[in-house]
């Protein structure tokens, strides 16, 4: 592999790390709101980094443009989706978990 390819793989691996954090987060965190934190932040960054790597790896201009569009789309929709779910949970009267619940 060339150094550029190594850099691309490293970028994708970094993205995989954050997506892994998101996956572990939605398993470990205690309630729907905190899980939405993990899903919105970590998964978005994971997606953005990895798709950026894919965009760099693809050579033709058009597929790079598609990948960039996908990236921007993920960047806008992921937090919005997390927000929609959190609001639905709030409207349904689900109480947020606090440290007192633990004791």
């Amino acid at each position: 592999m060339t150094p550029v390819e190594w850099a691309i793989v490293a970028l994708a691996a970094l993205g995989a790390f954050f997506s892994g954090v998101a996956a572990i987060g939605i398993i470990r965190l205690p309630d729907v709101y905190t899980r939405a934190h993990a899903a919105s932040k970590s998964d978005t960054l994971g997606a953005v980094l990895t798709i950026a790597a894919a965009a760099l790896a693809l050579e033709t201009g058009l597929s790079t443009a598609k990948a960039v569009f996908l990236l921007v789309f993920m960047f806008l929709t992921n937090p919005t989706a997390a927000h929609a779910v959190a609001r639905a949970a709030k409207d349904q009267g689900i109480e947020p978990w606090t440290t007192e619940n633990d004791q």
Partner: protein
Amino acid sequence: MVEFATAMLAIAAAFVLFAVVALYRVFVGPTIHDRVIAVNVAGTNTVIAIALVAAAFEESTFLDVALVYALLNFLLSIAFSKFNVEHGGVL
């Protein structure tokens, strides 16, 4: 020495694994919202995996699949949140 395509596919496999991990939350819930968030995460990871496969095989048509999947994934979360609240748990 590893091939570039192999490395990209290995990372794609990792994303598939994360999607499977997220499925655990889909099964245990406990609320519908936990499940929707988990499905959303699993969907995002699938989109990323498809994009990585596209990069590994130099197949830009796969990116169209990823785009449409991303659109559907977003729509799914929004639709579930809307229906669940405003129509008193239809879904």
